[in-house]
């Protein structure tokens, strides 16, 4: 029997970016809030030099990530196949522990573009209804860019983003992204210092007529104190950023920003090592009564009653808990009914390398976000008529680090071992320029999440099953935009140009691509087509709110966390100003 704990106003499942923001916002509102996190607490001692500068431990053995021996998902490309467990991490790296993936993220922090929020309308208007492929589940987001703007702003100032605005209140700013939606004000911090690769990319893309801008970064370009009085240090360009915790407290992360800010409130308490296995509901199923969790330290089960349940367990955890707890109707791709698990999207990413005999890049001087971007081929910033696909990509130079196990390149045709390989590695390690194409991904009928009929996790519960493949639209996008990136690399005049390798089906769960998994509990206008309403509230169980990229109706050509943060502040605001006054569905169906 589970031990029943004292009722709280709010229980939050997961203490990453979304859980941390919710904890702060709702405890500030005076509610008693309990935050449950399946993984360990994190402190400065966990990330101190020299131990943190261990590529093998953190970037190869993945010490800070989800332990798949306890829980994983199963995967197949198509519904006709047998799904098999992801036995080792690969394609994506979900976080675990206080701070979630926000501990070891890179910090590339974008806003989605205004037309991302009205994608279906925009495509129909510009290209006609018949432009949309048959199985593509294209939808408008249920909130506009303008509605989210103040919440983007709040996230950026909380996290101290270093960047250059491109559009302040409708006025285009020199050096920023001219395609971005209007913002109220400049970024809180100036851009990071450019690397040689950034400078070369800027120069070349300008010459080609594109519009380069410094990538917005959660790595501090100078010491920063955020509106909550939290102090962040100056980034050291240490190159041990992606996959690592920051030794200098210079990477905005939940465990050093929103979570300590929330912990100042006596009415917030946090429990690490608490693995939530179920959201409990009343007998009629209409309301949640709290959650059940297992202490992974003792194995004991507890019930935490609460009037409001907020899922912040990363997209996968959110959808998994909804499926396990019967919140909403599971999606069925055959009849295209049900909503939970629908709209799972990923990204279509490629890398282009080029090699310069007479350049020295010092790749080990970098940050998780250092680079320069063009948005000329993102979203609907260009005419899609001639290319015949929907979506786009941010194309950028990346100076993320030069850790030699993973971040090393040699020109095509180099043998994989022996003296020749060694010679090439010695010569080109410091002379490689890396660019990336981060392509969007649209929801498609047969890409979805449900419960696996065979495999179980350490708690005896069914694993979640992912059915996912790249579509024709994805292949067209990747072929076109990888060529654009390749042409940019060629225009820089390299000694050798790396391979042009656009993504093609079948998608593989093996090589790392990105931890930008979206959808599965999408927000929309119509309860028969979406799991959540525009406030990220479950249509079916009104005291359950579901945060994170699981709410995205499609994935964009940007990193997701700027939008995830904005949506979380937006939902917190709706809870504070609307829900608490009149608990129940915020939109009547």
């Amino acid at each position, binding site marked *: 029997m589970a031990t029943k704990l004292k009722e709280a106003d709010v229980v939050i499942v997961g203490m990453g970016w979304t859980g941390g923001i919710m904890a702060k916002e709702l405890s500030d509102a005076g509610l008693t809030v309990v935050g449950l996190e399946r993984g360990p607490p994190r402190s400065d001692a966990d990330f101190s030099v*020299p131990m943190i500068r261990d*590529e093998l431990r953190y970037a190869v053995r993945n010490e800070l990530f989800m332990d798949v*021996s306890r829980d994983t998902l199963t995967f197949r490309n198509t519904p006709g196949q047998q799904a098999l467990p992801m036995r080792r991490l690969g394609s994506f790296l979900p976080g675990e522990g206080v701070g979630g993936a926000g501990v070891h993220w890179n910090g590339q922090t974008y806003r989605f573009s205004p037309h991302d929020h009205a994608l279906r309308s925009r495509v129909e208007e510009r290209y006609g209804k018949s432009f949309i492929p048959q199985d593509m589940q294209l939808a408008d987001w249920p909130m506009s860019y303008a509605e989210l703007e103040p919440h983007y702003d709040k996230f950026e100032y909380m996290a101290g983003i270093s960047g250059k605005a491109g559009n302040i209140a409708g006025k285009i700013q020199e050096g920023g992204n001219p395609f971005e939606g209007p913002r109220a004000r400049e970024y809180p911090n100036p851009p990071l210092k450019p690397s040689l690769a950034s400078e070369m990319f800027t120069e070349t893309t300008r010459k080609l007529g594109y519009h380069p801008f410094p990538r917005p970064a959660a790595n501090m370009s100078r010491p920063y104190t955020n509106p909550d009085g939290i102090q962040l240090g100056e980034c050291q360009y240490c190159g041990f950023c992606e996959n690592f915790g920051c030794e200098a407290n210079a990477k905005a992360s939940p465990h050093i920003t929103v979570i300590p800010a929330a912990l100042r409130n006596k009415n917030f308490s946090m429990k690490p090592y608490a693995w939530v296995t179920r959201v409990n509901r009343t007998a009629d199923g209409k309301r949640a009564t709290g959650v059940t969790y297992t202490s992974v330290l003792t194995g004991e089960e507890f019930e935490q009653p609460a009037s409001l349940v907020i899922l912040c367990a990363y997209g996968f955890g959110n959808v998994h808990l909804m499926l396990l707890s019967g919140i909403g109707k599971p999606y069925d791709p055959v009849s295209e009914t049900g909503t939970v698990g629908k709209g799972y999207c990923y990204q279509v990413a490629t890398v282009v390398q080029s090699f310069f005999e007479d350049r020295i890049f010092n790749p080990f001087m970098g940050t998780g976000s250092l680079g320069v971007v063009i948005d000329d081929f993102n979203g609907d910033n260009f005419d899609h008529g001639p290319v015949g696909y929907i979506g786009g990509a941010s194309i950028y130079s990346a100076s993320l680090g030069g850790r030699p*196990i993973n971040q090393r390149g040699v020109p095509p045709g180099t043998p994989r071992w022996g003296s020749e390989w060694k010679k090439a590695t010695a010569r080109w390690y*410091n002379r490689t320029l890396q660019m990336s194409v981060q392509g969007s991904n649209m929801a498609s009928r047969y890409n979805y999440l449900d419960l696996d009929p065979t495999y179980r996790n350490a708690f005896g519960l069914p694993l979640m099953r992912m059915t996912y493949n790249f579509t024709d639209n994805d292949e067209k996008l990747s072929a076109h935009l990888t060529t654009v990136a390749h042409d940019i690399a060629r225009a820089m005049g390299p000694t050798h140009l790396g391979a042009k390798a656009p993504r093609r089906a*079948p998608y593989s769960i*093996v090589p790392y691509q990105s931890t930008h998994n979206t959808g599965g509990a999408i927000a929309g206008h119509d309860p028969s087509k979406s799991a959540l309403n525009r406030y990220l509230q479950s249509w079916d169980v009104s005291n359950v709110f579901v945060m994170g990229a699981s709410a995205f109706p499609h994935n964009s050509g940007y990193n997701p966390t700027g939008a995830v943060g904005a949506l979380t502040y937006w939902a917190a605001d709706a809870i504070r100003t609307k829900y608490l006054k009149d608990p129940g569905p915020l939109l009547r169906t």
Partner: protein
Amino acid sequence: MVDIARRDVLTMAGAVGVGAAIPVSPALAEAPGKDPPQAPAANAARSYQFFNLDEAAFIEAFVDHLIPADDLTPSGTELGISIYIDRQLAGAWGKGARMYQLGPWAAGTPQQGYQLPLAPADLYRCAIRAVEAHCASAHGGSFDRLQPALRQQVVQALSEGRLPLQEIPAGASFDKTFFDMAYANVMEGLFADPIYGGNKDKRGWKLVGFPGVMAAHAENIERFRGKPYPVEPLGIADLS
């Protein structure tokens, strides 16, 4: 190169009544003249925890084939890469920590990734046995005794998943699975921090010019933009 396999040295040591448990330095076997005999305590860091004698002979030959001695670095074995791999296999990673290991098992597609019921250490053990069986039947000798050209042929075939490995349990892409894992481990042994037993004297880092754990580059990124940054690399142990 001294034409005497390490296995023979160990067997001889056994034959004269020195227990096989007594560690013998790999370098001693390779080049007895260079490395004077050390006290067992000093040798402990260079003797194997996981590999048996046959496996050690295979892995040393494999590592040295991938990372041969030349004017850029000493051989992979001298850089400690075989010791690195041994320690990894003897430790938690080799035993399958942080892997989902429950059945049922099916071969799956390459896109579904690793599906063998074997932890990495078990995979090495089975695969080495199978590669050796192939070398014996196809070439009449163990892998470490093949001529370099033949070794290259075996490694090439292994890397392309073309080597028929008889003793292997079911698994669609087993052959390449082993090579991919071993290849990744060799690269780790060359480039991981020396605390793990490889990258001896930071020769892997020196090869490419990676400065190691000292990484306060807020000023350097401007000062050294486009210019060489020549420093002696430092590892975790240097700062501990």
